[in-house]
């Protein structure tokens, strides 16, 4: 790997691009990141970007909680509150949890199935750049009004953007336009990665890695990807309808012309409920990897966990009306969807039981990843149970649009997804940074976050049942909500402190963390058979898989009572993936870096801006997209043959 800056030849765009590409070919410098098609680098970029958005969304949450700390607080006015609330929800769903899951899909899937990269490396880079473009586009909306005089230009329709709150009449300005177009762009990114990971998982597995030998995380990636490719088109159409209504005076949600605002709710939740599982299934996958490793036992009931995941995937299409019980769809619809909602609790419960049975009788190693994983199981179960209470129609009539709902979905999305994602950080980041995160700081982070989380969201169950509506920007005294809101705000700042601990830990560990080595956790799956960080080609020699948990079986055999006994070194019977000698990767042909995915991705925000401000820009954006796609299609995809 030469680290020389390529000689600059004559100026000119073509030469500049060629120079950049040569630099990228050598895995060196800024251009090697911009033009990268390496799944690990893309995964890291996904992770870092999403984490920055996590901090943004977190600051928004702190602003909201500060406003609600006492009745009639004057921190934010109603308009600012609405806009920040909308951005908090949208950011956390589309810019944090989804892309953080995507970061793990990228980082882990090829390693876990024994592949050198994903099926379509450039498509993968494209999906990252589109995500970044969409995220920035969405947040730029803040600045479309005079932010210095306290006016925010962000959307104000809530993350569900219900019609007719989203119509031009009730939301003038460009906030909702930015929202609709921004989410549309993010959808393109998700679709691209959805297609890519399905093909990767079905087609790129190492020899012997049959479907039922795949790690659970890979299974959940597969199910999630299917949900993405089938759910995203639905929200795409809904967003197009909203965009046409707002920008071209169409009538989809215009009651004056007979349009039905409920159509939006149907479309949104048709997408929205599968989306809920798009957010939580990857988290379940992460936890299903961590619990067995730190219990030193195989996952209990592997097929049940797999099939529960698939069942959840299918059933998630049949429960959307439980978001709409109070819209008057009638008893038949409400009862049917109430039943289906209760039923979807069954496969979820199966998973929880399997996780607990995995830990049962294991020799538990309570390192930070394990703590977060156990925290996930506990918090997610609470959130799941309050979810079941929503399925009961009459009870839901009372809870609809109260803080009880806010409590519920934060228990599944924060207590669930975010806890699992942090578990994933502690577990897998050392593989890519080469440095272990400090466990003591990790424990402090965990306990602060667990306490802060429960302090924030548990009281919301109470304030909700006391009748506090969600989305209100303030409340008056004497309704019994004051104390619970105070608790929630204290909790929110406790969470913020815990995140600070994590950031300190991350920076500290990068500098002086313990070296991770190949296999810091005595892992079970293929990613631990290669160095940390892995070489860009991942596997010197593609492994051959003989069993589920292949690496474990290479390291351990069992005695009569099923206890693991280490295999004597060198006695492994013909396992191919031993002895990863480093030949520097010569002779391994990896896909060439390319800047065309980035160029193509740039087309979307330009087009979107054009739709809002000036149609001439739409043509410019389309031209950029064209250049990107044609360059992409016509460039050779592989590094040249080398001796």
């Amino acid at each position: 790997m030469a680290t020389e800056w390529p000689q600059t030849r004559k100026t000119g765009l073509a030469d500049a691009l060629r120079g950049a590409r040569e630099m990228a070919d050598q895995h060196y410098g800024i251009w090697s990141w911009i033009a990268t098609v390496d799944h690990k680098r893309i995964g890291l970029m996904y992770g870092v970007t999403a984490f920055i958005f996590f901090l943004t969304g977190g600051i928004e949450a702190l602003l909201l909680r500060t406003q609600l700390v006492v009745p009639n607080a004057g921190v934010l006015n109603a308009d600012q509150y609405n806009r920040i609330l909308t951005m908090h929800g949208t950011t956390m769903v589309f810019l944090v949890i989804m892309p953080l899951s995507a970061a793990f899909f990228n980082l882990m899937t090829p390693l876990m199935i024994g592949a050198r990269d994903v099926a379509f490396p450039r498509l993968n880079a494209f999906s990252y750049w589109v995500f970044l473009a969409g995220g920035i586009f969405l947040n730029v909306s803040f600045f479309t009004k005079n932010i210095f005089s306290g006016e925010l230009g962000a959307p104000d329709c809530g993350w569900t953007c219900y019609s007719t709150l989203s119509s031009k009449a009730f939301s003038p300005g460009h906030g909702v336009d930015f929202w609709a177009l921004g989410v549309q762009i993010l959808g393109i990114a998700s679709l691209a990665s959805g297609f890519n990971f399905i093909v990767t998982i079905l087609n790129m597995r190492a020899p012997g890695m049959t479907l039922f030998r795949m790690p659970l995380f890979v299974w959940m990636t597969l199910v999630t990807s299917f949900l993405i490719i089938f759910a995203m088109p639905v929200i795409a159409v809904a967003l197009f309808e909203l965009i046409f209504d707002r920008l071209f005076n169409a009538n989809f949600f215009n009651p004056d012309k007979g349009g039905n605002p409920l159509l939006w709710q149907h479309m949104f939740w048709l997408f929205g409920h599968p989306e809920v599982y798009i957010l939580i299934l990857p988290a379940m996958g992460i936890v299903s990897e961590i619990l067995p490793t730190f219990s030193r036992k195989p996952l209990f009931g592997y097929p049940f966990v797999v099939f529960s995941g698939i069942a959840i995937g299918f059933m998630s299409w049949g429960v959307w009306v439980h978001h709409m019980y109070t819209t008057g769809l009638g008893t038949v619809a409400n009862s049917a969807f109430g039943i289906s909602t209760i039923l979807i609790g069954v496969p979820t419960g199966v998973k929880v039981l399997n996780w607990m049975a995995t830990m049962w009788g294991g020799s538990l190693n309570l390192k930070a990843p394990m703590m977060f994983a156990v925290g996930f199981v506990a918090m997610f179960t609470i959130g799941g149970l309050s979810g079941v209470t929503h399925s009961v129609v009459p009870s839901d009539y009372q809870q609809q649009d109260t803080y009880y709902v806010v409590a519920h979905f934060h228990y599944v999305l924060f207590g669930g997804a975010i806890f699992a994602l942090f578990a994933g950080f502690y577990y897998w980041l050392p593989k890519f940074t080469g440095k272990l995160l400090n466990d003591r700081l990790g424990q402090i982070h965990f306990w602060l976050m667990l306490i802060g989380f429960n302090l924030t969201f548990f009281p919301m169950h109470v304030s909700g049942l006391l009748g506090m509506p969600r989305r209100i920007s303030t409340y008056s005294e004497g309704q019994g909500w004051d104390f619970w809101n105070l608790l929630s705000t204290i909790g929110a700042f406790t969470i913020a402190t815990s995140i600070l601990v994590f950031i300190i830990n991350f920076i500290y560990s990068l500098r002086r963390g313990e070296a991770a080595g190949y296999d810091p956790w005595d892992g079970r799956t293929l990613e631990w058979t290669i160095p940390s960080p892995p070489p860009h080609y991942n596997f010197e020699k593609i492994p051959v898989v003989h069993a589920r948990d292949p690496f474990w079986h290479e390291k351990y055999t069992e005695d009569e009572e099923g206890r693991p006994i280490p295999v004597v070194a060198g006695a492994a019977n013909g396992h191919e993936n031993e002895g990863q000698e480093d030949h520097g990767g010569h002779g391994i042909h990896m896909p060439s870096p390319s800047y065309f995915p980035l160029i193509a991705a740039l087309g979307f925000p330009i087009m979107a801006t054009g739709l809002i401000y000036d149609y001439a820009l739409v043509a410019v954006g389309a031209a950029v997209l064209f250049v990107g796609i044609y360059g992409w299609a016509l460039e050779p995809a592989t590094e040249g043959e080398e001796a």
Partner: protein
Amino acid sequence: MTLAEYRRRGGVEPAREEENVADADHVEKHPGPLEYAQIGSILAIITGVEVAIYYLGLAHALLVVGLLVLSATKFSMVVLWFMHLKFDHRLFSTMFILGFILALSIFTVVLATVGGKLV
């Protein structure tokens, strides 16, 4: 371009799942130009029949059923022959049918709950 191209298997035969291995010479089973032309004519005739039915002035229910059946026939013929699903690997059909059935069923339910009518 795919990575699979330059994956080195280290001389090891990839362990394929038996039932999933695509038929390498499935191209041979594809129909020839003549058969395609025949299918094309059938499609053209069906389209003619559809238009004829439209002008026939049948009872509305009958018209709807007739047209739906004819259109489903055209749809299936294009998918099965022109898009080769009849001759191709099952996995391809699964992917497509999954999307198709999903769309059909959820939107039927949406139209039923919101009160949309076909007839």
